[in-house]
């Protein structure tokens, strides 16, 4: 394993030092692992906080800024942050109108955010929470920890962020966030596993013509192993998995997301097939993102996330955003 790191122990701190140097419009505490807007909380605005394990960059710190998050707290690689970080991030986001915690549905994230919310409530901060659980590769049943939160997190953070920026109260921002999650589904495919800095070995081994279907974003193996196919067929596998769980029609917001080690040219090839297949079903790519947004270290592969847009959601999606990883309209 060759990685551009100084040591496995300092990966997150070192990356945050780099983020700080690259983005003067962010306030970054590399030791405390808090990233927030340099301008501080916006008085009277609902605050948005998210956090989770590192290794998914640009998620979440890359989405801090006007129109999206107020603060983020990155944990260790693939490890949920601790409640103290969440409490500090909440304080950095709190403009007095309450704070929404955007939590990806993983046991660790859920438990730590739960403990944090208790602490915040003790300090008198009004907290609402949205659980993102869009990954259809996992069955949402009592036999699982529930569907994982993956690509839809970007949609939730963007759209809820726009609602908050527009002055909506906490309950409404939370409602919009939950609506986005309810209308979104994802499915991921890996061509190669990722390698965590600590273990130094791929989290699973794939043969020359093997792929893993239904992977999450933590290097865990997926739903099943399959034979490698061309981009058109792989796009179909991913889109059909989404469509099976939530039939796609009308205006759809589509993200073809790279998992960290996939070049953009390949993502565009997948996106071409997704767009074509979607329109073959009578749906339409109304808005889109193609690139690395929710990654899994250096994993090779992609995920597809689709969100059924309403007019309101489309308007909030189009609203100005000014963050390291998403920018438009301002």
């Amino acid at each position: 394993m060759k990685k551009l790191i100084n040591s496995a122990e300092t990966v997150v701190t070192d990356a945050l030092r780099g983020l700080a140097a690259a983005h003067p419009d962010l306030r970054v505490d590399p030791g405390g692992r808090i990233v927030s807007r340099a301008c501080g909380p916006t008085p009277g605005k609902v605050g948005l906080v998210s956090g989770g394990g590192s290794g998914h960059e640009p998620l979440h710190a890359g989405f801090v800024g006007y129109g999206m998050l107020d603060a983020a707290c990155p944990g260790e690689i693939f490890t949920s942050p601790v409640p103290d970080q969440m409490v500090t991030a909440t304080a950095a986001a709190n403009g007095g109108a309450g704070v929404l915690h955007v939590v990806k549905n993983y046991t660790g994230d859920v438990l730590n955010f739960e403990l944090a919310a208790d602490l915040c409530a003790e300090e008198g901060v009004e907290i609402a929470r949205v659980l993102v659980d869009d990954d259809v590769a996992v069955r949402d049943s009592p036999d699982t920890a529930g569907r994982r939160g993956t690509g839809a997190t970007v949609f939730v953070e963007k759209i809820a962020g726009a609602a908050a920026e527009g002055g909506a109260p906490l309950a409404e921002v939370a409602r919009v966030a939950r609506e986005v999650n309810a209308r979104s589904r994802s499915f991921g495919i890996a061509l190669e596993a990722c390698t965590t800095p600590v273990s130094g070995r791929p989290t699973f081994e794939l043969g020359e013509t093997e792929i893993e279907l239904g992977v999450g974003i933590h290097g865990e193996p997926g739903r099943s192993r399959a034979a490698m196919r061309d981009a058109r067929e792989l796009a179909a596998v991913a889109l059909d998995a989404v469509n099976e769980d939530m039939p796609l029609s009308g205006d759809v917001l589509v993200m073809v997301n790279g998992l960290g080690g996939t070049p953009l040219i390949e993502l565009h090839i997948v996106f071409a097939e997704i767009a074509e297949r979607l329109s073959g079903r009578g749906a339409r790519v109304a808005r889109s993102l193609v690139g690395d947004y929710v990654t899994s270290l250096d994993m090779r592969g992609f995920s597809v996330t689709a969100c059924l847009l309403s007019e309101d959601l489309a308007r909030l999606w189009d609203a100005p955003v000014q963050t390291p990883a998403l920018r438009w309209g301002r």
Partner: protein
Amino acid sequence: MDTALLTRWITGIAETVRANRERLTELDAAIGDADHGVNLDRGFGAAVQALAEEPPVSPGALLRLVGGTLIRRVGGASGPLYGTAFREAGRHLGSLGDSPEVSPAELARALRAGLDGVTRLGSAAEGDKTMVDALAPAVRALESATASPAAARAVAEEREAFEAAASAALAGAEATIPMVARKGRASYLGPRSAGHEDPGAASCALVFAALLSAVNDPGQG
């Protein structure tokens, strides 16, 4: 059982977790996200440091400090869960007045409170392929081996109680191998999770092995 013994316990956990760091991480790589060993190493290392910086005055305070440190430093699923286990155990002793010395039976009841905290927070039952599969039988073994009045028991019997707990935890951890996970990350794999030992159950067996060592070790202070 006093703070010296419990400090030896926590120090022992930190040492065995450090020694088993790679093994725990490998277990987690197979059915999780390859961080369990690192997570616990960070957490128990911090706990040992916290105990050294401000040595607690009672077993209850010690367990609360360890629990709080784990919650504050580990993250992931195991941080809140292990943290809650220790904190709730400590709180139970606190509710009894935080005496400077507790009996094995009292520790068993405290660990029962810790187990209850874990299942309340994580809502895992035995058979779900989690740390509960090692923790629950270990607590049961300790409870039943310490059930008779203390006066009637010899020191040797007490050691046997902790031996029973350690082997129950180990057996519980091994029993997770064929299980299909229903909680935590491993549950994402469905049937593919069978055939692998649960990392949290494996680390829980280390925790009870360390407790046995601490009891067996006369200590220096």
